[in-house]
């Protein structure tokens, strides 16, 4: 199968954060404003949390 999506790890992680944040914002909130707020909070938490874990694991490459 042809891979259409880049194989860069950060891009894959950010795409994952995007779909998961959008999904839960739609599932858990009913009005548009609350959905955008939750989407932003989830997206920021996932991306920044992922970067923080990556930074903490930097001394342990294996």
């Amino acid at each position, binding site marked *: *199968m*042809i*891979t*259409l*999506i880049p*194989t860069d*790890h950060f891009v*894959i992680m950010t*795409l*994952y954060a995007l*779909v*998961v944040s*959008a*999904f839960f914002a*739609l*599932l858990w909130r*009913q*009005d*548009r404003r609350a959905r955008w707020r939750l989407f932003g909070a989830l997206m920021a938490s996932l991306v920044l949390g992922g970067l923080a874990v990556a930074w903490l694991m930097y001394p342990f490459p294996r």
Partner: protein
Amino acid sequence: MSERSESAARPDRSPVLAMALAWAVPGLGHFYLGRRRTAAAFLVLVTATFLAGLSFQGRLYSIERGQPLTILATFAVYGAGLLNIAARALSESPVGTILAPTYEYGCTYLLTAGLMNLLLILDAHDIALGRKP
């Protein structure tokens, strides 16, 4: 259609049918319950996640003897409904490509798509019963 009319309760709709439709096609249960815009968004999100998992050469799990965690993984992937069944029928390699650098990501995306659809099934059930506005 406005958001207000989308969230109107539909007590005349069958919860069992809503759940069956939600399992078969992501978002179809919500469409049946009259939440058409949300249904379209769920269809796009879950399908895109599943297709991304396939393009990352992830694995469509099956139960393996001596590997109890594959029971949970298989349950999760089968949550994606007809997407999973069609992918198994059409894919040349349903076990994925373990040597591909994106294999683990692919597995995660496929499991996530199935689990998201399982949540949609429960959500459709709650909406049909009037438990969720």
